[in-house]
């Protein structure tokens, strides 16, 4: 029983990381209507920045995380401006998707050239005491607590931001109809830039949390969690913020349970199997809206 609970807790912890990544994904997808393949690799870059800042330069962890958020935010804006914006009105929807794959590949290989292929061991930057429950048989690490609370706070913050601020409302408008939003005096380019900035900033936070829980860092660290977070976003209903959170947590739990009770090698296959089932049964996800295509 206690092993079940500890699996559940680590599932929720992993799921919260997926949720934070998925929040970035779902915002970008909802507003720019594109699958940002490079999102996962922004996570990796964010983690490397923290790694270099803490281990190499001896910076205070909190400063390092802030630095990482700033760099990732800028990177998100630059990537969007250089690689995605020129293709926004391209004739084929594949154009921007292939470019996004290219950007993802570019980030991985630049990281490979800068930091090498060897695994860096990421030192935990979150030094909180562990919580012991049920007479010490269940241990919740500090990272887990921070991750779960962080995930919930970020989700709540994003929901408030979207519903209460002018920028958030502009994002909603752009996601509904770009042309109409522009006629209403909304700067579409700026709004999409801000979306990418927020998404990439969240990716930096997710990177720190991911690498604190699983402390091995390579140029490919971000790719898999990125894709799984997309699965989570689809699962919860793409474009929906609470959906992304729920999807992330469910997926994290599924993955850990799959690893623990079925087969550790098959865990990824189980996660992807979920994606295929969801897309077949309910392509709009749990909380997604059904949009009818019109001529």
């Amino acid at each position, binding site marked *: 029983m206690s092993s079940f609970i500890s699996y559940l807790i680590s599932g929720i912890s992993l799921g919260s990381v997926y949720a934070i990544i998925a929040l970035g994904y779902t915002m970008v*997808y909802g507003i720019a209507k*594109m*699958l940002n393949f490079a999102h996962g690799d922004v996570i990796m870059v964010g983690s490397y920045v923290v790694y270099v800042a803490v281990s190499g330069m001896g910076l205070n962890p909190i400063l390092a995380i802030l630095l990482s958020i700033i760099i990732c935010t800028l990177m998100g804006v630059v990537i969007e401006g250089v*690689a995605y914006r*020129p*293709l926004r*009105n*391209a*004739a*084929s*929807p*594949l*154009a*921007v*998707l*292939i*470019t996004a*794959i*290219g*950007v993802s*590949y*570019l980030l*991985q*290989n*630049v990281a*490979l*050239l800068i930091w090498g292929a060897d695994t860096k061991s990421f030192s935990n930057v979150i030094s909180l005491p562990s919580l012991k429950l049920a007479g010490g048989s269940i241990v919740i690490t500090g990272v887990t607590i921070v991750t779960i609370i962080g995930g919930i706070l970020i989700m709540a913050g994003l929901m408030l931001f979207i519903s209460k601020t002018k920028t958030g409302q502009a994002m909603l408008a752009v996601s509904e109809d770009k042309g109409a939003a522009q006629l209403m005096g909304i700067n579409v380019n700026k709004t999409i830039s801000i979306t990418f900035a927020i998404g990439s900033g969240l990716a930096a936070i997710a990177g720190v949390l991911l690498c604190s829980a699983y402390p091995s860092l390579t140029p490919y660290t971000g*790719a898999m969690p990125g*894709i799984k977070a*997309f*699965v989570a976003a*689809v699962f919860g209903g793409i474009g929906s913020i609470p959906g992304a959170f729920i999807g992330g947590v469910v997926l994290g739990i599924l993955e850990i349970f799959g690893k623990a009770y079925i*087969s550790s*090698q*098959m865990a*990824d*296959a189980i996660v*992807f*199997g979920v*994606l*295929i089932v969801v*897309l*077949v049964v309910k*392509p709009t996800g749990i909380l997604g809206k059904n949009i009818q*295509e019109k*001529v």
Partner: protein
Amino acid sequence: MEKKKLNKTTKSNLITYGMVLAAYLIVQGMIAGNLLSNLMQGLLVPLCVYIILALSLNLTVGILGELSLGHAGFMCIGAFTSAAFTKATMDTFTNAGLRFFVALIIGAVCAGIFGFLIGIPVLRLKGDYLAIVTLAFGEIIKNIINVLYVGIDSNGIHFSMKDQMSLGMEPGGKMLISGAMGITGTPRQSTFTIGVVLILVTLFVVLNLINSRDGRAIMAIRDNRIAAESIGIDITKYKLKAFAISAALAGIGGVLYAHNLATLTALPKNFGYNMSIMFLVFVVLGGIGNMRGSIIAAVILNLLPELLRGLSDYRMLFYAIVLIVMMLINWAPKAIEMRERLFSKFKKKEA
């Protein structure tokens, strides 16, 4: 003598076939004249595999208009089913040529069936979703093969997902697939000649499909799904057809690949996401929808790192830049506008 006029597509297709044949003859000449090092000769069969995969992916991306990131998965199925067949029948099926042919059919059909099965749910989706599901499928296939144990004895074929022991085989049984160890001891039957023949077969299938009634229906769906549906084109049928054919061709590439290796394993290096991306790079550099371009791009991108040794570290980086730059130049509305303005200037000067 009556002169028969060839139409434009036939001519263009003949040029493509001719190009492959000419390249084949040149390479054969170079081998005969000892101009090719052993290393380069060893790269010829993989090159054929890549060309077949690039053609197959170009059918999905260029003609069907959907992005598949799971082509390495279909290739993987073709490779493993055919290699398992070859290994199982190695002692009983003595005609090696015929056995290879049967293995080829098995690999292509199995990959095609998987393409069909995965296509049924997936082709209802579009664009991004389809890309991510095919990616997921490729990963699932790789994961499953890595834990799959298959053995054969006098009682038939045994499957297990746990280990070799749980197969419960008789002492004389033979292991076909041993999990992460893959398949060992497949005869290395793939040759450059077989590779080129398979390229020609693939080209024949793809080019004929494009210029058939079915092909035009598929391209109509790509250009405007709703318009195509409204004139009575059965979307699901044609999409599935194109996707299954594309998967089967990828399977053929897999068969060629499997019979070029003594040990076949489902490592990310062989059948991972990166492979699928590499095929995509060939397609994008050669021109989406342009079969001849895919062949040329695959050849160039495989030769370059070999010829310029110093470049090999930057190979992947180069691929990434190719993807981004090619897409920006070819598809960005502003770039198209600028190109048109440039060309019109040249035309004015000429006039």
